């Protein structure tokens, strides 16, 4: 039976050709651009709108897509509880680097905020916090003077206001275009955290994809509690530089979240869906009413 139908179709096909005038060919449907995103890890085509609902996580391989700071804020804090701080601080071009202003404008357009760091106060299930989020869509979340200043002011604000501090890092490192000024922001931000620490205040650092270079080697690595978001790339030197230096291939899983966990550099790996819940839990643990004796 199986091929009897095939033979019938072939015979009738020949006949149909004599009846039908022209051969009809079908071209693929030209769908609009940008409807689908490619998952960097498994290559699956993902429908953008579904991704938004699913918190930018690939349903097939659980890859965590990079998020803008605004999306991250919306996902993390209580609805409408975010109040921005130091929004007026923006970058200049101290070294007169060619093309820097252009890059800044592209960053503003992509991230819809005016620098690579969104910060202010907000609430997570009612607990008031100071919160800052680096935006990797704004010049790779790179830290120049403006970002350094905003991070430092957020830390100083949370120190004077006695608030727990949460910073989400997503950065390629210090911003080259501002040279030595960017480098010094590492010391400035770390110094501010010393005072926050001396006031016995809680600082949770969440390392998201990617956290490397100058940001990793400063405020991002100084959290009382260090959380790595699942499937994030976290490290100091770029993989390319390391490969050139040691002339060897890098081991599998190098500089991933599990790498950092197994080498004792982070406390926890948290899936993006559980992040808000975990932050709430940690905040509650630190609101400590003394246990009645």
């Amino acid at each position: 039976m199986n091929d009897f139908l095939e033979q019938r179709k072939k015979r009738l096909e020949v006949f149909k050709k004599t009846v039908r005038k022209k051969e009809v060919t079908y071209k693929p449907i030209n769908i609009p651009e940008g409807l689908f995103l490619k998952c960097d890890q498994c290559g699956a085509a993902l429908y953008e709108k579904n991704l938004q609902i699913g918190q930018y996580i690939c349903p097939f391989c659980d890859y965590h897509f990079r998020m803008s700071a605004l999306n991250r804020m919306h996902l993390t804090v209580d609805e409408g509880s975010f109040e921005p701080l130091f929004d007026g601080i923006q970058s200049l071009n101290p070294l007169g680097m060619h093309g820097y202003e252009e890059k800044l404008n592209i960053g503003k357009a992509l991230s819809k905020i005016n620098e690579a760091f969104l910060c202010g106060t907000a609430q997570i299930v009612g607990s008031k916090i100071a919160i800052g989020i680096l935006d990797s869509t704004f010049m790779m979340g790179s830290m120049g003077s403006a970002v350094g200043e905003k991070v430092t002011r957020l830390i100083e604000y949370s120190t004077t206001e006695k608030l727990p501090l949460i910073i989400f890092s997503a950065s390629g490192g210090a911003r080259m275009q501002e040279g030595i000024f960017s480098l010094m922001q590492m010391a400035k931000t770390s110094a501010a955290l010393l005072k926050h620490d001396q006031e016995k205040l809680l600082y949770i650092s969440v390392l998201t994809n990617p956290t490397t270079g100058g940001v990793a080697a400063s405020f991002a690595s100084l959290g009382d509690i260090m959380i790595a978001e699942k499937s994030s790339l976290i490290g100091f030197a770029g993989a390319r530089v390391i490969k050139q230096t040691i002339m060897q291939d890098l081991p599998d899983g190098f500089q991933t979240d599990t790498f950092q966990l197994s080498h004792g550099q982070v406390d926890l790996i948290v899936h993006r869906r559980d992040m808000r819940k975990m932050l709430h839990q940690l905040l509650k643990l630190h609101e400590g009413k003394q246990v009645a004796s």
Partner: protein
Amino acid sequence: MSKSAWEIVKLARHPKRMTSRGVIDALISDFVELKGDRLYRDDQAIIGGIGKFNATPVTIIAQEKGITTEEKIYHNFGMPHPEGYHKALRLMRQAEKFNRPILSIIDTPGAYPGIGAEERGQARAIAYNLQQMMDLTVPIIIVVLGEGGSGGALGVGVGDYVCMFENAIYSILSPEGFASIIYRDSTKAEQAANMMKITAQDLLEFGIIEEIIVEGEGLHLEPNVGLNNLKKALTRQFNRLLKMNKTTLLKQRYQKFRDIGVYEERGDEEDEQTED
């Protein structure tokens, strides 16, 4: 005769240029090297120890590149691992315990980019030093001797007074690295160097460093000129800083780094416009 940035880069990396060990031998008496981070191993990219400067006991932290090939390999070309930074902090805490000032000599192409370095937390090692050096209640003087390689240099570079040798450089990344990113061609390092503003003169103007140590013909030709100028500078600054009370010392050190950064702050009214 002002030298181009690229010429200074070549001098900073000159094979005959004096390294930290030379400075220690010249300026520090009774030097005893102290080794190891008590956690993993000793990292010889950073030499640490105690000795006397003008008869005052000081703690020395010095990034050493080595001169002969064997020395370069032994000192890993001056590129520290995390354990190097841990050792430096251990010795600096010890300096605070015994109320000794700290002299930190910077000469490194950068923190070592290796698998072991990442495994042992290179980022955090540097970050923790940046934070803790702000807390040491003893004077810290930083000397940028040759190459100030980005985070690797800054990891032992937080202090009250930063002086930099005339032919030294201090930058966010190497001119070659900068060229390969901006021009996609690392051979354009010279062009990059002249644009990056990484010389002592640039940094003095930017207020990043406090003093330039004149070298005369250069540390590789007549080292004594540079060494004497350094000695005079250190003598002046240690005397000044040792007289200062601890709280002002720390407050000024914090403010020195707090004020670094060039940005604009638009007033609130302008904010409304951008907030459309």
